[in-house]
């Protein structure tokens, strides 16, 4: 088909929510189109959630299934929790993108394909015997066949750039079209392009032209009978931005450093999907942030612990395989009782597993992945912006209790984005830490001395005396220490006491964290859906959906996994049935059963991708009827 010049008056339909998925070859710039669409949507004031999905290969061969890169965005006029189960609209830039995404599209969904890419060669690459655009395969969907490449090329004709560069702007064409369709203003993207390509005016021009061409095409083509409007959500007043989990984690750490007065030291070794925290932090040196790309994960956590000994906020970021290497050092941190943050951006395991995909399968590792009795508090983030708060909390616990703390996020919250109502520094908690600055004990003869393991009776935390402090010179190490003096002790009873003290210190944190909040509107639900971490979004959405269907169901979500909030036993014993959806084979459920002897049951998905709300809603349905 070709563009027509006829100007038609288009209808505008109002929707409350839409899910769009951009899909194309890794080289097609889908992540960028998705990001820009997201920003435009955020600026427009919709609530949104996004899910990027890129291939494990750096550059898989062009046109293959392995090379497909996708970006899904869910936006709406009310608050939403997930990037959407299934797309309403699929933009497929080539046959591979169509083939690998079609099964997610519900009957009646809309497909916008770049017809130009459906060449024989490309069809063959993905094993299409006939062109799906020409056979019956797409009958169940509303299909728009657009010659996106050709239209783009025509739009940028005359701009002084090569053919390859010209073609690469087709993502802007697609973006322009979608922006028209959903009434997203182009101004933000135009501005962004202008900054980005300030030094490459020809490229800039081409991109702007393609973007505009896409919009104009929607506006003018008779193909599209209507465009849609999704009104801004009625969100809490405030200033918002869109943020990914990894960026929020990085900002949370910077905030914790400012609020505690402790300089931030990050020891890290790159690993997907955690590297972006390192990248982000290394940009903000004017906050006094020291980032150290270590030779390996052991050195990374070691350096962070060394910095903590020196009085920094010591942090290490990694993913599961990296945590597997850090266990011995974390056990040392437990023994010497120094603050340390270990951030695990979880990915699919075991071993290298599915390195670019999400999973929640490192909870038991965080709890038990060390030798000896080695308790470590655990905090988990439940959404992209919650990473900020979770990082602050992890830092608060670590510094107050002088203990390593795990912060668990995962690929889903790390790379996903959502709007975030920005806090002001003034509203954030005071995390100031008092170092030891004088003697705390007397010898039998009355001489004052410093006992590095004389605990605060309330928190059981030991004093943190940093090198440079006069008089408080002391030695610590991983051999068992005498309660109080901290001298090496092989005394049997002392060892038991110290093991119990370390356990009690961590257990006692339950007094210092919020109670588990239960959402049970009818107050007589039989079923409690209990989750942790990033499955929050789909759980919330599923519970809401189930309630709309009439089901009585309660919901609660753990941010603190060790120790659990003080009321957890009461909560879980209040319900006949407990359903625990997790992206693993059942880890939290194990701990709940053991701790509270309740017959909690798991709903387990280990597929490298988040739950859909439908999957959980169905299970709720099944369980409540």
């Amino acid at each position, binding site marked *: 088909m070709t563009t027509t010049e006829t100007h038609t008056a288009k209808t505008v339909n109002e929707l409350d929510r839409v899910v769009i998925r951009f899909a194309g070859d890794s080289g097609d710039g889908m992540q960028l189109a998705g990001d820009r669409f997201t920003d435009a949507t*955020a*600026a*427009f004031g919709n609530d949104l959630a996004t899910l990027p999905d890129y291939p494990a290969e750096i550059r898989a061969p062009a046109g293959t299934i392995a090379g497909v890169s996708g970006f899904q965005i869910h936006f709406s006029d009310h608050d939403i929790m997930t990037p959407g189960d299934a797309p309403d609209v699929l933009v497929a830039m080539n046959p591979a993108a169509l083939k690998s995404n079609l099964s997610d599209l519900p009957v009646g969904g809309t497909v916008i394909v770049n017809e130009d890419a459906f060449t024989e060669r490309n069809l063959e690459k993905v094993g299409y015997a006939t062109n799906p655009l020409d056979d019956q395969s797409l009958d169940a969907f509303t299909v728009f066949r657009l010659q996106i490449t050709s239209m783009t090329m025509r739009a940028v004709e005359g701009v002084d750039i090569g053919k390859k560069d010209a073609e690469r702007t087709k993502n802007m064409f697609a973006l322009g079209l979608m922006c028209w369709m959903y009434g997203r203003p182009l101004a933000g993207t135009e501005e962004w392009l202008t900054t980005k390509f300030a030094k490459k005016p020809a490229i800039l021009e081409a991109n702007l032209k393609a973007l505009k061409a896409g919009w104009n095409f929607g506006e003018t083509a008779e193909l599209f009978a209507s465009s849609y409007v999704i009104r801004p959500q009625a*969100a809490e*007043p405030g*200033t*918002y*931005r*869109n*943020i990914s989990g990894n960026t929020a984690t990085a*900002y949370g750490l*910077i*905030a914790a450093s*400012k609020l505690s*007065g*402790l*300089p931030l*030291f990050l020891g890290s070794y790159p690993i997907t999907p955690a590297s972006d925290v390192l990248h982000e932090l290394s940009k*903000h*040196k*004017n*906050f*006094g*942030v*020291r980032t*150290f790309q*270590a030779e*390996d994960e052991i*050195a990374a956590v*070691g*350096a*962070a612990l*060394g*910095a*903590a*000994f*020196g*009085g*920094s906020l010591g942090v290490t970021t990694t993913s599961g395989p990296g945590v597997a290497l850090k266990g*011995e*050092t974390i056990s040392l941190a437990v023994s*010497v009782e120094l603050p340390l943050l270990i951030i695990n951006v979880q990915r699919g395991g075991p071993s290298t597993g599915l390195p670019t995909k999400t999973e929640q399968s490192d909870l038991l590792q965080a709890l038990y992945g060390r030798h000896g009795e080695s308790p470590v508090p655990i905090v988990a983030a439940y959404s992209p912006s919650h990473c900020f708060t979770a990082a602050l909390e992890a830092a608060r616990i670590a510094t107050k209790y002088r203990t390593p703390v795990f912060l668990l996020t995962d690929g889903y919250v790390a790379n996903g984005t959502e709007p975030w109502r*920005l*806090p002001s*520094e003034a509203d954030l908690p005071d995390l100031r830490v008092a*170092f030891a*600055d004088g003697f705390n004990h007397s010898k039998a003869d009355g001489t004052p001395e410093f006992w590095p393991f004389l605990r605060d009776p309330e928190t059981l935390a030991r004093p943190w005396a*940093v*090198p*440079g*402090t*006069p008089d*408080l*010179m*002391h*030695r610590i*190490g*991983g*051999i068992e220490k005498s309660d109080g003096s901290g001298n*090496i002790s092989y005394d049997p009873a002392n060892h038991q006491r110290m093991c119990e003290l370390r356990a009690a210190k961590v257990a006692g944190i339950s007094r210092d964290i919020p109670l588990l909040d239960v959402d049970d509107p009818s107050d007589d639900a039989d079923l409690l859906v209990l989750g942790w971490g990033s499955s929050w979004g789909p759980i919330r959405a599923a519970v809401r959906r189930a309630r709309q269907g009439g089901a009585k169901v309660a919901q609660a979500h753990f941010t603190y996994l060790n120790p659990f909030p003080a009321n957890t036993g009461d909560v879980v014993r209040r319900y006949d049935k407990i359903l625990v959806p997790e992206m693993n084979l059942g880890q939290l459920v194990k701990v709940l059963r053991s701790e509270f002897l309740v017959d909690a049951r798991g709903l387990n998905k280990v597929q490298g991708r988040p739950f859909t709300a439908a999957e959980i809603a169905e299970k709720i349905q099944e369980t409540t009827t």
Partner: protein
Amino acid sequence: MSITDAGTDASTEAVALTKRDFTSDQEVRWCPGCGDYAILAAVQAVIPEFERKPQDVVFVSGIGCSSRFPYYMNTYGFHTIHGRAPAIATGLAVSRPDLDVWVVTGDGDALSIGGNHLIHALRRNVDLTILMFNNQIYGLTKGQYSPTSEAGKVTKSTPFGSVDHPFNPVSVALGAEATFVARTLDVDRPHLTEVLRRAHAHRGTSFVEIYQNCNIFNDNAFLTITSKDTKEDFQIRLQHGEPIRFGPEGSRGVRMGAGGNCEIVSVDDVGVDALLVHDEYAENPGLAFALSRLAHGPSSPTPLGIFREVSRPAYGEGITAQIEQATAAKGPGDLDALLRSADTWTIS
């Protein structure tokens, strides 16, 4: 109190410190006769010279007999885990450039399990003084061979003799871009003391290999170079700017061969002018490396002293400079501004 205040308490007036100020109250627990005692005594004796207050000095160690060292120093100390001391000390030194950070380690701790951290610390030139007590054995675990044990060594884990070719620690360090490399002996107090002085004065990583006798599991490993009878023949003492000579009345010397390797010659045969003149400060580590190859283990004439000292910015300085530059350019971090550094929108 913030950590940057910590080191600057004005109340500690400039009274000269003594060995006693650096001696902790902990009972020293090495085997009687162990070479570690002599090294401890030397460090405690020389460290007051450096005019750092005990509270500004930190000893970090791994695991091994040698790694017990920090307990005996009245400074801050961290007895960590096996092999990881260079990594842990890196974090400390980088985040606290105001401190004087030492690492004490063994041949197993530094070169077996800890090899990677050691070579990376050397490459980065982190500001650390690393003392490696080389007794060519695993002492603490009661006598298995180490990566510096001579080939064929019979130990508990190698009853038929080891088939491993050992490392030459000086060569390893030089191959890893070390800026300061020295070798000394537990039993030679003046030499050890002088090397400690130089190592401490060096900015960046100083790597000091100290031959140390483990009288329980590897007694007399260094006998040829320490015993009265043979030491003249077996010690090649390096002196900057001097022709390298040793043996009775300096009768033997070291010459640089055409192929880039050092050879031992008779001074009478070749004349003093043919001898290699030692240059600690040579930018190129070729000379130091060639010297390191003269002896593989202490069974032939062995160079002692400073192989190399060159200047290269210490790693931590670079990191601090970037912080200072960024702060100068952007001003100190403003959290509210940071959070708002992307597109924002307001709902009222």
